[in-house]
């Protein structure tokens, strides 16, 4: 993209900011994405950060394009590092095509790997001149705005919007900082050193910026969620925070429990009494809820679990990403009972599937999982504003009669659910094996009936499953298989390689599998798994359920998400090494 002195970006560019925790990279990201969206650009941004509050090196990558983007690149076009450690932190992603803007002292000294173009830019220096090094991020934000020729009025308005109430006294100086940054960028653009010609699209005005956590939260609200109890744990906390923010507005009870066990049991209690309740948690926290998942199984209680995956075992890498909890969720809880596992790959997926999780849980009276991961939760997309429709979801409960029996045996295994205090009946639920009334029993015949009743639900649950999505030709010989958050990344990589006969089968529901799954898998001569874990957990599930495994596995478990260009390379390596076999 650098042509004879001038660096030109026509369709898209990937911009990375990096620096210490607590130095405001996140504000730059928020401000820059808002401004870029204002200017009609499509933005996808994602971050990786350490498990610490200050110091260390974190980075945020913003991909800006003239058409929708929903995945990120390993390659960096423009890098703005706030200190030298940060620069070194992303050094593997640099190439001669990369342009680095940074304070002079960040660029000097040790050699910079990858031979990038370096352009000194006084971010910190300007901030210090304005009286505080903390304005550095504002100077950088202004600089980005300038690069994209965003006018200074819009810039100033957005900055001012960030400093209201108690903080309004800080508005002026921050506007000034941004302005100075913008000025430097314009000067550079004016001088012809760089040209950013990524046109805006007016349609983007009806779009929203949304991150994974918000999408899950909106889905929950749309699903009628009115009770959340959880214990903080990265990366799931973001959903708890979202729900807490909206609690008063939408009438949601949000309670931080003393531990995960309490959270999960509160949620079961809440459903019992007539709420639509959810926990949001991550690996180790979810592991503590397993007995309670079994409780939901036995009580036939609806339960929605948002499980934001991070690398394990144990504490692992608390702020990193992985698709490592599939087995954990799939086999959680002791005893045998149905469950559903959904795995969104896009914000629209997350809204739709989380909303659906509530109606499925309510309908089948079983646990439903929404499996996301740190990557998904912390990434942000530009998407069309979702439409929710006018009809509020209805809770499937009945007014009980005097002879109400909570566990009445029915063909499909579903018994009408009553709640205490509505109707003349009594609602009796029991974690022991129980009879139709809900009272404890040790009758062996009743036991068998109840096991069969619970498992009978699978028939309908399977019919109701989300079909996997096929991208590419129907008459594929090679089938790439992905699930959850990797979907958009794999999709773009596949588009880029344009290899004939290769399609992608992407799963938004990982369990139970849609009945057509074996057919899809069976048609392929060669199957390639793409998973963010070390043991190909979804492949194992496919093999157990359909008999079809995969010959090739592309697995990643270093704590980071796949990127499009990385996958393109893997697909190409794969082709070479396996041609003709």
């Amino acid at each position: 993209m650098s042509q004879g002195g001038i660096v030109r970006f026509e369709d898209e560019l990937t911009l990375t900011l990096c620096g210490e925790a607590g130095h405001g990279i996140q504000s730059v990201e928020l401000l820059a994405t808002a401004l870029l969206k204002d200017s009609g650009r499509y933005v996808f941004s994602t971050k990786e950060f350490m498990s610490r509050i200050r110091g260390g090196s974190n980075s945020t990558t913003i991909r800006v394009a003239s058409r929708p983007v929903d995945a990120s690149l390993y390659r960096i076009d423009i890098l703005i590092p706030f200190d030298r450690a940060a620069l070194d932190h992303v050094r593997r992603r640099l190439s001669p095509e990369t342009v680095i803007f940074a304070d002079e002292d960040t660029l000097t000294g040790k050699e910079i790997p990858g031979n990038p173009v370096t352009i000194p830019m006084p971010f910190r220096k300007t901030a210090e001149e304005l009286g505080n090094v903390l304005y550095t991020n504002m100077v950088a934000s202004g600089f980005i705005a300038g690069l994209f020729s965003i006018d200074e009025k819009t810039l100033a308005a957005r900055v001012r919007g960030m400093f209201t109430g108690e903080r309004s006294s800080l508005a002026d100086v921050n506007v000034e900082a941004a302005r100075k940054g913008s000025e430097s960028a314009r000067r550079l653009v004016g001088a012809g050193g760089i040209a950013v010609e990524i046109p805006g699209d007016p349609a983007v005005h009806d779009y929203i910026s949304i991150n994974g956590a918000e999408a899950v939260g909106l889905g929950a609200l749309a699903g009628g969620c009115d009770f959340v109890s959880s214990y903080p744990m990265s990366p799931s906390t973001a959903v708890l925070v979202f729900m807490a923010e909206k609690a008063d507005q939408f009438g949601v009870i949000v309670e931080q429990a003393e531990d995960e066990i309490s959270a999960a049991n509160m949620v079961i209690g809440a459903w019992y009494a007539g709420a639509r309740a959810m926990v949001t948690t991550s690996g180790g926290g979810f592991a503590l809820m397993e007995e309670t998942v079994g409780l939901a199984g036995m009580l036939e209680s609806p339960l929605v679990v948002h499980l934001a995956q991070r690398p394990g075992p144990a504490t692992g890498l608390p702020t990193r990403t992985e698709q490592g909890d599939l087995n954990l969720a799939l086999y959680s809880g002791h005893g045998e009972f149905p469950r559903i596992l959904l795995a969104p790959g896009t914000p629209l997926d997350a809204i739709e599937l989380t909303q659906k999780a509530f109606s499925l849980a309510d309908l089948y009276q079983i646990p439903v999982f929404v499996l996301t991961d740190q990557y998904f939760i912390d990434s942000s997309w530009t998407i069309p504003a979702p439409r929710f429709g006018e009809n509020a979801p209805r809770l499937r409960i009945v007014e009980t009669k005097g002879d109400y029996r909570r566990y009445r045996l029915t063909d499909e295994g579903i018994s009408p659910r009553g709640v205490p205090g509505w109707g003349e009946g009594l609602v009796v639920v029991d974690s022991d094996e129980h009879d139709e009334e809900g009272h404890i029993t040790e009758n062996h015949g009743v036991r068998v009936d109840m096991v069969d009743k619970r498992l009978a639900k699978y028939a309908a649950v399977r019919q109701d499953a989300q079909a996997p999505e096929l991208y590419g030709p129907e008459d594929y010989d090679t089938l790439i298989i992905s699930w959850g958050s990797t979907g958009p990344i794999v999709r773009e990589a596949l588009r880029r390689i344009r290899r004939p006969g290769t399609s992608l089968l992407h799963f938004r529901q990982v369990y139970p599998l849609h009945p057509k799954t074996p057919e899809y898998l069976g048609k392929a001569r060669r199957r390639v798994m793409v998973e963010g874990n070390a043991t190909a957990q979804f492949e194992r599930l496919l093999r157990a359920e359909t008999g079809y495994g995969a010959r090739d596995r592309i697995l990643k478990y270093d704590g980071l998400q796949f990127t499009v260009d990385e996958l393109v390379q893997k697909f190409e390596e794969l082709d070479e090494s396996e041609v003709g076999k």
Partner: protein
Amino acid sequence: MNSGRFDMGSIDVAWCPGCGNFAILNTLKAALEEIGITPTKLVMVSGIGQAAKIPHYMKCNVFNGLHGRALPAATAIKAVNPGLTVIAESGDGDMYGEGGNHFLHAIRRNPDITNIVHNNMVYGLTKGQASPTSRRGFVTPVQVRGVSEEPFNPLAVAIAQKATFVARGFAGDQERLKELLVRAVSHRGYALVDILQPCVSFNKLNTFAWFREHTVSLPSSHDPTDPVEAFRRAMEDDPLPLGVFYEETGRPIFEETLGLYERSDLPLFRRERNMAELQRLVDGKTGR
């Protein structure tokens, strides 16, 4: 006592003949009847153990959950439908052992529920191991050298956490027990009633006779509004005082602090999501 509104008629009760649980069951039914609770508005929440079977022996709504986990479920049930009377009732192992953390933190929330604990100083259902309240020296198949830990003191801990109602009763004194239960259920806020309950099968140390000998009423001069006095009494362990140790009125209850019932007292199952508001929320995020 077999004709009250909470009676189940002739059912098979799994307790041992002579067990202190029978007295507690009967007394509780009588107390609830006296207060005028309706079975359809009562939810009995329990864990697992002998005591925890009590909800099955009463005509009412039942949430018989996991061992140790009655309090979180009870707190949530009350929060979701404050019109219900919610009682969390289980054994000493259940509430103070497996459920110890919930005991600590449920108190802090001060939900308007009653927490009744059958304290037989032993694990009954699992056949006689020590419970957190077992006294020093109690020998069991697992505690072969006798219990060496300091017994858990539920009343002192509850007072230390400023529980708003803290009482101890004895299954062998149904009259005063009924009085305590009436007060506890009527109390607005979290109320703990620890009930000394002889287990005739597995606790040969703390029998009806032993409890009679080793308990005493709190003096009528006892001031239940003074936490330090309450604590002093709670630390007395021979004889064990009976009665209301501590009571505080007027503290906000959990359900109130949620802000959800300020404008409407409808339980959650009668409410609907405001979809228009939700649409406004996302529309507000566009550039329009």
